[in-house]
């Protein structure tokens, strides 16, 4: 790999160490903020369209409400001792040097106001404890810097009290929404899911046509009729996957992988047009009401279709919501088959099929790829796969090793629970934040460049729709092709051998029973 700077002299400065701490650059990112939501994006979510007249009272009341209804919010605001352990852990700080992107400093933007109105010391000795009045400037500052947090939880791993900036950032965004200062990207998308069923606003008709085209492509490729069913009543499995899987690269190749696995496993499955979205941006804006509304669509779809199981496709925060919150917000799911976890991850399903010997692979189909794997933040630090702690790290790697000969992990300080965010998570995957996204991707890209230098790694697999989109946009700025990011199930799709599949001309893959292969 050539030095990225030679090919892209304008590109970001690459540092050799992904963990290198930058010098403080005061105010470096003070002007970077996403577009504000239009009243049309605010009102369907239950938020005022514009900044309300009594914003100060409303905001302070909301802080009090959060402190009384969310233990994490109160404990995290009270317990911080400013030890500094988190200060060099945020990818946005490492990439920008702006001190307000240090997790504790980001929390303090809100903590200072909480102290002023809700603590003894802040009420009577504000200067002493760094408490401050809530002003319009403070609101603007919140809007700016709480939209420079991807809620990835990396800081919380290193905090002696587990203080999670994501919780503070979600709360701040909810306060901003409550006074009428929403963010366009997230709120517009949530509105689309509420009306149409997915982030893209893809109607049932268009979705059906897309899936039929994909079925044709699959048949052309394999010679086997592999189906991608839509709204099929009484299918066993409801697949809920990010809508990016229906049209974006490399997401779509992952969807083809799921279809092939389901086909070869011989299970009946379906996608729902009503709940055609795994993503739940209600999480990003800290709105339990909106998160709940989106979760309930999935429940309704499962009930209407009469499925027995729910499986989620490759999406990071969606898996967090599904794994942790779906049952709480839309359960109980006692109408589903109790023999399977609710919900399941597609990788759990695929690995189980591999271990049962139901899938066969030609790993050489992936020999043109030297692969590494990016642990997505919400999967790594906010969920689990399998039945043991840490399964979220082992399950994807086990699948990758089963389908790919050349696999190399990145620096351990940048993987597993210490993984870096892609730079586009938490509702920041919008064009006007491109500068932030590129700088935030720097630590991950630096770690990637190391394995490229050491092991000739060419591709990086991910299991998150946001990661995939983000990397395909920013990787070219770091000297990689945009298709260097791949779906995990894309590699499964490359290597899987379907019964009766054409291989190199007329040969066909024999049935499992005939071949005696496991």
């Amino acid at each position: 790999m050539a030095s990225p700077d030679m090919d892209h002299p304008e590109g970001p400065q690459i540092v050799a160490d992904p963990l290198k701490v930058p010098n403080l650059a005061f105010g470096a990112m003070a002007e970077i903020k996403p577009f504000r939501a239009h009243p049309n994006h605010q009102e369907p979510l239950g938020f005022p369209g514009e900044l309300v007249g009594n914003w100060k009272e409303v905001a302070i009341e909301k802080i009090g409400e959060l402190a009384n209804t969310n233990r994490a919010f109160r404990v995290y605001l009270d317990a911080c001792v400013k030890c500094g352990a988190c200060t060099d852990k945020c990818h946005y700080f490492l990439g920008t040097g702006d001190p307000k992107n240090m997790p504790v400093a980001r929390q303090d933007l809100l903590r200072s106001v909480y102290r002023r109105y809700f603590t003894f010391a802040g009420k009577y000795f504000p200067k002493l404890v760094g408490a401050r009045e809530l002003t319009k400037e403070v609101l603007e500052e919140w809007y700016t810097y709480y939209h420079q947090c991807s809620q990835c939880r990396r800081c919380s791993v290193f905090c002696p009290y587990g203080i999670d900036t994501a919780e503070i950032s979600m709360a701040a965004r909810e306060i901003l929404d409550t006074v009428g200062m929403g963010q366009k990207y997230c709120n517009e998308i949530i509105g689309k899911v509420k009306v149409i069923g997915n982030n893209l606003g893809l109607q049932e008709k268009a979705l059906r046509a897309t899936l039929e085209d994909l079925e044709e492509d699959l048949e052309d490729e394999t010679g086997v009729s592999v189906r991608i069913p839509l709204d099929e009543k009484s299918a066993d499995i409801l697949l809920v996957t990010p809508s990016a899987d229906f049209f974006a690269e490399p997401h779509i190749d992952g969807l083809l992988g799921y279809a092939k696995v389901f086909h070869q496993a011989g299970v009946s499955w379906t996608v729902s047009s009503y709940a055609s979205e795994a993503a739940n941006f209600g999480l990003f804006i800290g709105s339990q009401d909106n998160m709940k509304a989106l979760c309930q669509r999935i429940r309704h779809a499962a009930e209407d279709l009469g499925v027995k199981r729910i499986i989620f496709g490759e999406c990071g925060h969606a898996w967090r919501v599904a794994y942790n919150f779906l049952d709480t917000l839309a359960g109980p799911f006692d109408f589903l088959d109790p023999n399977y976890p609710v919900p399941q991850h597609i990788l759990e399903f695929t690995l189980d099929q591999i271990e049962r010997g139901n899938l066969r692979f030609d790993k050489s189909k992936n020999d043109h790829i030297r692969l590494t794997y990016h642990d997505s933040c919400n999967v790594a630090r906010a969920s689990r796969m399998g039945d043991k702690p840490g399964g979220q790290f082992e399950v994807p790697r086990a699948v990758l090793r089963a389908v790919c000969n050349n696999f190399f992990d990145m620096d351990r300080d940048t993987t597993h629970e210490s993984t870096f965010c892609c730079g586009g998570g938490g509702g920041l995957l919008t064009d006007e934040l491109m500068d932030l996204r590129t700088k935030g991707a720097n630590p991950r890209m630096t770690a990637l460049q190391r394995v490229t230098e050491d092991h000739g790694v060419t591709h990086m697999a991910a299991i998150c729709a946001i990661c995939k989109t983000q990397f395909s946009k920013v990787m070219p700025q770091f000297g990689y092709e945009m298709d260097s990011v791949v779906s995990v199930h894309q590699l499964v799709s490359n290597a899987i051998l379907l019964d009766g599949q054409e291989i190199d001309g007329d040969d066909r893959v024999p049935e499992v029973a005939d071949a005696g292969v496991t």
Partner: protein
Amino acid sequence: MLSALYAGLFYLSASILVFGVVLRMAIYARTPAPLKIAQTPAPTTRIGVFWRMLREVVFFQSLFKSNKWIWVFGWTFHMGLLLVLLRHLRYFTNPVWFWVEWIQPVGLYASFALVIGLLGLWSRRLLVERIRYISSPSDHLMLALLFGIAVSGMAMKFVARVDIVAVKVYFLGLLRFKILDLPPDPILLVHLGLVFVLMFIFPISKLLHGPGVFFSPSRNQVDNPREQRYAPRTPAN
């Protein structure tokens, strides 16, 4: 007069400390945790969570992962403080419990560890630009307060010895609600005065990280949402 003043301050600050912390913990316990937000990989059982918490509280596991300098100074300070506090039990018990007797010499050395830890933390706060940026005046004052307590305490042992038997008699009296004579030693008065200040501010300051750590949902929740439905009673549910 002096004895009565210090007795009053003792009762007041001790009450504020105890009631303040109990009240805070009651508020934390009463505040609902509406969703599962365990920071994974997390234990899948209650016993697992107990061990996780123990590793955090005793060894500062996450801090160790994060930054070796802060860990070394922070852990040295806290363990030193713990031993020093346990050593102080001898002034409140008669006869002195056997294990408090045992740790007397260790407790003495621990005071040096405590001071070294404090100075280490303080110098990082002053010298590391990132940590200087996030520090408020109160963060420095808190360190100054603890430093003052430690140094005045050590001075009474190593420099100008106080009539410690009389001090013990005074405190044993206070425990029986009798106000006896407190030796009017200036270092002792400074030491006790600073301790009262610390007890006053404990429930209203960042010192709440002590009880707070046990209530952190990211660390105290069991990672079992698929095995056991999580349905806390909250206003929203």
